[in-house]
């Protein structure tokens, strides 16, 4: 971070407005910034603060016809971007400014091969022949450390894992060595471990090519790891701007301080001061899961017989006491969600699940319905888990209606109380899910889950998609409610820092089995299984002073849980290494 020469991108007094039902609304107000060659600029801030809009404005890709630049100038070198027509802008996009989007799953065209998607932008911007473009694409893939680059060219996006897809996106963006790379939350959708790899990659490449990067993120850990300079945004305005170390060390704006305070940190969990290890063992268990198996049959052959099976959950046992939070952690695809779904009655399973003394697969219809009341679930994506065509008030009232509270008045009152309880105002009951911010939506989901006063709430990645400040508020809320109602949580997350902050006990899953389980302190301060250790190491630390040189890397791909019939996976035996700290022998 020695003196960097000329600015490559300057934004002056940018305003972006969006047309809405009651006229135009400004989503970016009076934003100015300068990006210098070779620099990494992080834009952080809460959800909806206009980060993506700023990025899209630079690309001239604002959603049409709703959004437009209402004032301001954007200069790339000497070129004024806002004045360019589409044809000339097209030549700049991809060639001089490239962009990586948040969602690697949907940002690649599912029907075109990786190779095609890589070469087409090369062909569009250079006069290289098809073969040369192919060579360039292979190099780009190699640069992002994708193995067997040549044969990958023929693969399709769905054949790659999320991390690989994001790497392909990066390769695509970097193939033409752009002057500026805009990365809009490039790792939010990824596992910690994969996130580490991707960030490292970005840093490497930037150093090699001297690309300037605008990195948009709400993860302060990522900011600390990556940024030279930081911009903090809120409500479409820049609230603070400065060198990374300054911002972390001496935040000026109130909001920045709030934001930093909200960041969960391993070891210094802000949310939980007292350890509950000392508390007396709780009496009855809310939920008891014994030897849970979930297998998905894959059919084949002329007669559609089962030929292969996905062993998604293989003999998982655990129990949760009232007022307790059990965290389930592990990499993508290890079976966390499937375990949750089994508990919620969404997938057929074998084994026993007993909730509040009643077996989930008990005989009576009414009984099953009663158990249903006791287990509620909060999903990862609050938007996807709310019917977009219903008003949120109705959505929250629905469980009440289903479980027999028929008086309209009573329902209304209870919903209003619930809204109040989760920090929403009751006049928001009339709105539709898309009219809320992510955090608010998650609150709606929580209100919904609480409506029936369940004994157990399953939170499947419930805060992963939220920005830190909102995340912190939601976590607080969950804790509040636990204190108040004594609910137990099964908390599923891949964010070790969050887990460290909220859980009483932790279970680490790998390939459908639990490899380590114990109290939070047992697992975090004394991780015994190598897999657990790697997970913990992969978490970026929100402190620029403690920036790591390399992230810990996991194995390239997780082995598959799919097996042929009759080849059941080996069962891991858990042994107690003291005080109920269970660890699997390394296999």
């Amino acid at each position: 971070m020695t003196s960097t020469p000329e600015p490559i991108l300057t934004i002056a007094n940018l305003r972006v407005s969006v047309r809405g039902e009651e006229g135009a609304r400004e989503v970016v107000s009076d934003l100015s910034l300068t990006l210098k060659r070779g620099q990494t600029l992080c834009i952080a801030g809460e959800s909806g603060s206009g980060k993506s809009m700023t990025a899209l404005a630079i690309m001239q890709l604002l959603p049409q016809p709703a959004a437009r630049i209402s004032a301001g100038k954007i200069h790339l070198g000497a070129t004024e971007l806002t004045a360019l027509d589409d044809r000339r802008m097209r030549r700049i996009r991809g060639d001089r400014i490239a962009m990586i989007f948040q969602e690697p799953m949907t940002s690649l065209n599912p029907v075109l091969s990786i190779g095609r998607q890589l070469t087409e932008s090369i062909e569009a911007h250079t006069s290289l022949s098809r073969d040369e473009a192919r060579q360039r694409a292979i190099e780009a893939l190699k640069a992002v450390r994708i193995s067997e680059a040549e044969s990958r060219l023929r693969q399709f996006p769905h054949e790659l894992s999320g991390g690989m897809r994001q790497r392909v996106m990066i390769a695509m963006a970097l193939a033409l060595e752009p002057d500026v790379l805009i990365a809009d939350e490039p790792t939010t959708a990824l596992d910690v471990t994969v996130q580490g790899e991707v960030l490292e990659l970005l840093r490497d490449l930037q150093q090699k090519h001297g690309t300037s990067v605008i990195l948009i993120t709400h993860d302060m850990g990522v900011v600390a790891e990556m940024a030279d300079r930081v911009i903090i945004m809120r409500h479409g305005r820049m609230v603070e701007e400065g060198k990374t170390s300054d911002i972390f060390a001496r935040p000026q704006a109130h909001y920045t301080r709030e934001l930093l305070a909200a960041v969960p940190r391993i070891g210094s969990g802000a949310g939980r001061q007292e350890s509950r290890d000392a508390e007396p063992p709780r009496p009855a268990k809310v939920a008891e899961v014994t030897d849970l198996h979930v297998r998905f049959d894959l059919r084949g052959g002329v007669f559609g017989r089962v030929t292969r099976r996905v062993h998604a959950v293989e003999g998982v046992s655990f129990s949760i006491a009232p007022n307790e939070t059990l965290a389930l952690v592990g990499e993508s695809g290890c079976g966390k969600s499937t375990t949750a779904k089994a508990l919620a009655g969404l997938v057929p399973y074998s084994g026993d699940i007993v909730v509040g003394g009643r077996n989930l697969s008990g005989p009576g219809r009414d009984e099953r319905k009663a158990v249903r009341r006791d287990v509620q679930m909060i999903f990862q994506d609050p938007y996807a888990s709310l019917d977009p065509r219903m008003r949120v008030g109705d959505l929250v009232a629905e469980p009440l209606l289903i479980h027999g509270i028929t008086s309209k008045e009573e329902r209304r009152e209870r919903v209003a109380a619930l809204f109040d309880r989760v920090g929403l105002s009751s006049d928001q009951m009339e709105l539709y899910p898309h009219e809320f911010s992510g955090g608010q939506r998650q609150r709606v989901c929580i209100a919904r889950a609480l409506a029936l006063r369940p004994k157990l709430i399953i939170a499947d990645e419930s805060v992963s998609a939220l920005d830190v400040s909102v995340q912190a508020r939601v976590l607080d809320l969950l804790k509040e409610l636990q204190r108040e109602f004594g609910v137990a949580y099964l908390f599923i997350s891949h964010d070790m820092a969050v887990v460290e902050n909220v859980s009483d006990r932790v279970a680490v899953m790998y390939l459908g089995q639990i490899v380590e389980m114990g109290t939070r302190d047992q697992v975090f301060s004394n991780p015994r299984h190598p897999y657990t250790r790697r997970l913990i190491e992969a978490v970026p630390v929100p402190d620029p002073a403690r920036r790591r040189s390399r992230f810990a890397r996991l194995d390239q791909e997780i082995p598959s849980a799919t097996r042929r019939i009759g080849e059941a996976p080996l069962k891991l035996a858990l042994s107690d290494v003291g005080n109920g700290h269970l660890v699997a022998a390394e296999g």
Partner: protein
Amino acid sequence: MTSPIAPDLTAGRMPAKARAGVWRRLVKRRLALLGLVIVAIVVAGAILAPWLTGYDPNDQMFDGLTIEGSPLPPSAKFWLGTDLLGRDLLTRILHGARTSLIIGIVANGVALFIGTLVGVTAGYFRGWIGGALMRFTDLMMAFPALLLAICLAAVFQPSLWIVAMVIALVNWVQTARVIYTETSSLAEREFIDAERTIGASAPRILFRHILPHLLPTIIVWGTLGISTTVLLEATLSFLGIGVQPPTASWGNIIFENQTYFQAAPWLVFFPGAAILALALAFNLIGDALRDILDPTQRGRE
């Protein structure tokens, strides 16, 4: 004990306010209003048919044909001309609106209803119910539709309602197929899982949550179905298994006279335009309804 939780109003937009009803929002749109007006005219025409013109729809007037027996072109006396039997075309089109509304709306509606029901059920319940329903749909789809209609209509004695039911029985299949595909993908959506975890019953999920999402598809198929069914009725009439003469329907007016499209173009043009207008009107309404009923489209012009 209850520590106040910071109200999350960060993105608090749009204060709750009384929302205009669907109807009011519908009439606010120019095109939708046009559609409504057309439908209203057709319905009014159908109801008021006997009083609107001075003619009887079945009166084969002596002065309705030339000496050589040719129909008369539109004139002050016969606004839309006369048909091959010397009947007033306008009167017949007005009376035909009754038949065509029954076919285009009732029969088509029933087809849409059956198709949706079967498609939704099969798409949501995998297992044997879904399998059986879809195999049955495949079976029905494998029938050449016209042939099936002919056989059904010939087995029963033709009458307007039988014809309507036959058309419904033939036309639900495609809808079922399309709805099935969409439902199966909807059923995978997370919010459906969320509904299940709160213990929502299958009918509730199907009808309160899945159905509204199918609306755009249903609207497209419904509006396209109007002209198709009206013309199918005509084909059946032509085969002698539709509504029986002299009952008028827009479709059979066209079919009776189609060979005369050069000699007496008005006989084909006017009923054709009527069918088109009705289908278009419903499409305009449908398009608007689709936007209005889709809350995510709120704010769009």
